[in-house]
C-alpha cells in the first residue's frame, strides 16, 4: 500500500498519557495493516525488558506474542505474507474494508456514510491514496487523528471518538480481525490481528466507562 501518503501533524498537542498510548497503538496498527513493517519497525517492536506480574492483561499478552514474533521475522518474509493475506490474486483472501463486512460488498453504502461523516468532521481525502476510506488502516489513522488533534484542530471530544468508533469500526473490526486470524496463510499477521482485537476490545470497554 505504497500509495498511501502521510500528512503529518505539524505540532503535536499535549494529551493525557493514556490518550497518547491509544494514539500510538492506533498509529502502529494503521502502519501494520497498511504495509509490511520494515526491519527498523520490527526491531522497535521487540520488547527488551522482562514482563512484570502486573502486566497480565489480554492486551499485553497479545503484545508480547507480537513482539516475540517481531524478533524472529524479516521484512522480506512479511512482504510475502502481506501479499498472500491482503492482496492475493484477484480477490484478496482477507478483506480489510469495512463496507465488505457491513454490506457484503466493497464500496457500498457504509463507505458513503463514512465519507459523509469524515467530510462533516473536516477531513479531506489525500488524492494520492488508492485505498478507500473504510480500509482498516485508514479508520485506525482517523482515530489517531481524533485523539491527538493537530495544529488547526484540538483533540476530538471522547464522545466524538466514541461515536466514530462505534459507528465506523466496532460493527466490523472484530470480524475482520477474526478473518485475519482464521486465514491459513496468516502467521505474523495472526498475532497482529489478535493484538488489534484486544486493543479494540479495550477501547470498546473504555468508551462504555466514559460516556
Amino acid at each position, binding site marked *: *500500500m505504497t500509495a*498511501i*501518503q*502521510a*500528512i503529518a501533524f505539524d505540532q503535536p498537542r499535549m494529551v493525557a*498519557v*493514556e490518550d*497518547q*498510548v491509544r*494514539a*500510538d*497503538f492506533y*498509529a*502502529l496498527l*494503521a*502502519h501494520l495493516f*497498511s*504495509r509490511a513493517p520494515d526491519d*527498523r*519497525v520490527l526491531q*522497535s*517492536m521487540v*520488547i527488551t*525488558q522482562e*514482563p*512484570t506480574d*502486573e*502486566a*497480565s*492483561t489480554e*492486551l*499485553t499478552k497479545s*503484545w*508480547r506474542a507480537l*513482539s516475540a514474533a517481531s524478533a524472529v521475522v524479516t521484512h522480506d518474509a512479511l512482504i510475502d505474507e502481506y501479499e498472500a493475506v491482503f492482496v492475493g490474486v484477484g480477490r484478496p483472501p482477507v478483506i480489510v474494508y469495512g463496507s465488505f463486512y457491513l454490506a457484503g460488498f466493497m464500496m457500498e453504502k457504509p463507505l458513503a456514510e463514512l465519507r459523509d461523516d*469524515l467530510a462533516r468532521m*473536516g*477531513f*479531506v*481525502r*489525500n*488524492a*494520492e*491514496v488508492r485505498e478507500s*476510506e473504510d*480500509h482498516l488502516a*485508514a479508520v485506525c*489513522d*482517523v482515530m*489517531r*487523528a481524533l485523539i491527538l*488533534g*493537530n495544529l*488547526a*484542530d484540538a483533540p476530538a471530544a471522547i464522545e466524538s471518538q466514541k461515536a466514530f468508533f462505534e459507528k465506523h469500526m466496532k460493527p466490523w473490526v472484530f470480524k475482520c480481525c477474526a478473518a485475519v486470524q482464521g486465514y491459513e496463510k496468516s502467521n505474523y499477521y495472526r498475532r497482529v490481528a489478535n493484538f488489534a482485537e484486544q486493543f479494540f476490545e*479495550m477501547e470498546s*470497554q*473504555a468508551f462504555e*466507562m*466514559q460516556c
Partner: protein
Amino acid sequence: MNEANKSVNMKTETPNNRRNFLLGATLGTAGAVAAAVSATVAPVVVVANGAATPAEKDAKKSKGYHVTAHIEQYYETARM
C-alpha cells in the same frame, strides 16, 4: 440492583476510572514500546483535518492553460 446501587456504580464510572482502566490495560510493556514504534513509523493518514494535500494545493494554484517550455517545444516540432 436497587436504585441506590445503580447510583453508586454510575458514580464510579468516571473519567478517572476510564483513565485507570486504560493505564492498567496497557501497563507493563505495550505502551512504551508502541510509543517508540509510533515515533518511527509514518502515519498512513488517508485524510487529514482541513489540510489540503499537495495535489489539492497545486490544483488551487492552477491558472488554466498557459504556455510552457514543453508546449513551445511541441509546437516547434509540429511546425510544417
